[in-house]
């Protein structure tokens, strides 16, 4: 096998920061190459250099592609030779059809008039190739994220892709969709497409990649062979974080106390499709000092359950009862829910959790402003003290609390969201995908915070798509499927297989 791509000692400097320092990356023709590293390690920057987003001349080093020295001055040039990137945030137009999206900027047209016949025919062929059975005329916002990802790949195929780069392709997908995507990549590999996959999910990397390159702090640390059984996840993690991770989940003495929160006969209907019931007769409880997990596939109603409990932020015709500390709680609006002792850390921190343009300090106090105010007047000094306290206590890595949260990394943003809810001093925290899109080191820290919370007698209800995380953290796990809680397992009973079997059999 010969190398398709060689990036040699790539150095890229931004004002004041060396983002990449003599990075080397060699990708063989026809392989699946995984690129891993913590957030901010330089993976995305490296891919932007490769695709010409940072044009030739703005970095040092050489790119050899297909045996030739390449100098791309823009993304069009790299696409012309078959290098296609699929970004984490999908670049599809939601209100256009699949067919229209596939040929955006590359329309099948004669004299400026779109040839719909050819467009639809080619779309059908491409969709078949990626195994997507949707009509070409379907609007993109009518299909799920998993299928949208396939549309992106079909779009890449339409441009005669040779080197496909996927940035965190499965971070928003359920297990099933992720598996379908990984299978597709293997199939494309058989057809001669080379891929680079950026991922935080090491089990995927292990299962699909031929080789793994680890980047840390802007430098290449190692390139490991992932074929065969020799490479373990611990090895990769060690290279990623630069230290031995004794374990991925910090230890905790589990001492569940009395029932802190109880939800009885919770029913929710869809806000738009009023005949559709989203949550059916859900009953659950969380004890003081207990981490309770909710497992389930994407779309099983986990987020909907959490948001409908938290101030009826989702759904219609909500019925059921919530008890906190044994007494019925009024959770009819968000402010009443907070007053009753609930907090909800959303899965979508950028859109639902943070005011990105505001400072760390102002975000942290937002849910409990009266605490830093007297008679409605905010004491900025008190506010700074609170924010500084959280910055130190949970290690938000930033020079000061006057930084805009939009400038922080994902892990640090998540810590700000957590701080906000810790400051509201709830009895029960609902954490929705608390570690999505953040790196291994920050995940470990967040697990530590969760453990400390329950040690202080709070209850935690944790929703996660990563089963190992639930198994590693929870005292008890509810399994959710199609809007109903279909099983309950203690930590001792729980395993990935048992959780999946509940889902499949329900």
């Amino acid at each position, binding site marked *: 096998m010969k190398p398709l791509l060689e990036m040699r000692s790539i150095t890229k400097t931004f004002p004041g920061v060396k983002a990449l320092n003599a990075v080397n990356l060699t990708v063989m023709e026809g392989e699946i190459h995984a690129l891993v590293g913590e957030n901010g390690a330089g993976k995305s920057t490296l891919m932007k250099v490769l695709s010409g987003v940072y044009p030739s001349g703005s970095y040092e080093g050489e790119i050899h592609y297909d045996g030739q020295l390449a100098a791309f001055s823009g993304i069009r040039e790299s696409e012309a030779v078959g290098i296609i990137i699929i970004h984490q945030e999908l670049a599809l137009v939601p209100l256009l059809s699949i067919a229209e999206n596939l040929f955006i900027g590359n329309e099948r047209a004669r004299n400026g008039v779109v040839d719909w016949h050819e467009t639809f025919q080619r779309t059908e062929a491409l969709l078949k190739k990626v195994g997507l059975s949707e009509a070409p005329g379907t609007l993109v916002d009518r299909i799920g994220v998993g299928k949208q990802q396939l549309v992106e790949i079909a779009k890449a195929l339409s441009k005669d892709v040779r080197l496909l780069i996927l940035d965190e392709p499965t971070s928003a997908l359920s297990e099933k969709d992720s598996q379908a995507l990984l299978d597709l990549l293997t199939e494309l590999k058989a057809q001669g497409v080379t891929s680079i996959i950026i991922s935080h999910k090491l089990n995927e990397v292990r299962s699909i990649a031929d080789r793994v390159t680890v980047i840390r702090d802007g430098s290449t640390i190692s390139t490991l062979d992932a074929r065969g059984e020799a490479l373990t996840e611990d090895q990769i993690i060690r290279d990623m974080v630069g230290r031995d991770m004794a374990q991925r989940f910090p230890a905790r003495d589990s001492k569940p106390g009395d029932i802190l929160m109880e939800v009885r006969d919770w029913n929710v209907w869809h806000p738009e499709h009023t005949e559709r019931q989203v949550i059916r007769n859900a009953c659950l409880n969380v004890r003081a000092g207990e981490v309770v997990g909710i497992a389930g596939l994407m779309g099983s109603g986990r987020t909907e359950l959490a948001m409908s409990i938290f101030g009826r932020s989702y759904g219609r015709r909500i019925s059921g009862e919530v008890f906190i500390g044994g007494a019925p709680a009024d959770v009819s609006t968000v402010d009443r829910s*907070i007053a009753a002792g609930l907090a909800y850390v959303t899965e979508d921190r950028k*859109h639902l959790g943070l005011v990105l343009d505001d400072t760390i300090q102002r975000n942290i106090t*937002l849910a409990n402003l009266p605490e830093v105010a007297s008679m409605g007047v905010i004491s900025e*000094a008190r506010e700074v003290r609170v924010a500084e306290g959280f910055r130190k206590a949970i290690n938000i890595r930033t*020079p000061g609390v006057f930084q805009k949260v939009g400038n922080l990394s994902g892990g640090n943003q998540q810590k700000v969201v957590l701080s906000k809810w810790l400051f509201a001093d709830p009895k029960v925290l609902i954490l929705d995908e608390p570690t999505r899109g953040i790196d291994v080191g920050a995940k470990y820290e967040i697990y530590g915070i969760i453990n400390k919370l329950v040690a202080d007698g709070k209850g935690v209800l944790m929703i996660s798509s990563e089963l190992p995380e639930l198994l590693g953290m929870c005292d008890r796990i509810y399994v959710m499927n199609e809007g109903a809680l279909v099983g309950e397992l203690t930590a001792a009973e729980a395993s990935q297989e048992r959780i999946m079997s509940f889902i499949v059999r329900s």
Partner: protein
Amino acid sequence: MASEPAAHQDARQGRSAGQYLANHLRDYGMVLALIAIMAFFQVMTDGTLLRPVNITNLFLQNSYIIIMALGMLLVIVAGHIDLSVGSVVGFVGALAAVMMVNWDWSIYLTIPCCLMVGILIGAAQGYWIAYWRIPSFIVTLAGMLVFRGASLWLLAGQSVGPFPRQFQALSTGFIPDVLPFVKTMFGVERMNGFAVVTGLVIAGLIVWMGLRSRARNQAYGMVGEPMSFFILRNLLVSGAIVFVSYKLATFRGLPNVLITMGVLTIIYAFVTESTVLGRRIYALGGNEKAAKLSGIRTERLTFLTFVNMGMLAALAGLIFAARLNTATPKAGVSFELDVIAAVFIGGASMSGGVGKIVGAVVGAFIMGVMNNGMSIMGIGIDYQQVIKGLVLLAAVIFDVYNKNKQS
């Protein structure tokens, strides 16, 4: 992370005046622009601009724009817009005229009634915007047409006036000199002692409060502006206040509207910067969904910003009618554009969550001084419009450029 506190310290101490200026270019830039524009017109009008009578006029001419800019800033920070304020000015002015002239109501009944009508108008529009989520652009565009039509109907197409003296005093009255001994002390013949003393007291208060908050910030280790900037800024601001109050004193003293406007500006600046209510409005505009999930009643807050806007538009309508001493069907036409322009020149962001009261007031003065200066110079209304449009565009381009450079 042992090295972090050290790096933190370095960042604070290493912050030079130049860097500070670069980070706050927008705040200072606007004030500097205002000074530059005033200097320019002072020269071009051979000193007419800063004559006592003209300074008084500047305040009288711009008071209603500034008063509405206070409310508009909140609306825009909350992520909305209000196009109806010009028509509300016309409608409330017309209503006041009908009440006082046709029905012979006393001003003590007319003024509260008119303000209440403004509140109801704001509530009516805010209801659809906040609780039905109808875009504010559309609701207030409708309001603009409705209230323009309503004022035409009220006045039956005629001008109604004149008003009782008491009502005119709302706009064209002056605070009498309650400290006559000051002018004998200074030995100046025509000088309003109260105006001078007020100016001195306010200037002193500003410096004192600045020093206090500076000391407090430093005690908590907050990053403040360099001392040189602090001194320069305070000299400039307090100097300007003393200068203006002296100039006003040598004419007829402090106009009533200046007091109204000044007090309102201080209240709104305080509310936006230091209260829970203000903070929540910024959060609402910055990210409505996040604000809602943080327990903020976003609908009610949106509703209240429009209620407030309606009240201030009504107040502006009364002041404008009092100034003209007659209500005409054309009163307030295109005021909304001046108000919105002032807020954007003042640094507010179209997408919400960003903007300051002081910025909006300075923005309104930039527009006002340009209007006034160009009129004195005899520049035609055609050129005036073009120049004002270009200034608005330039201010916003400067904003966007600055933002891109920082990120």
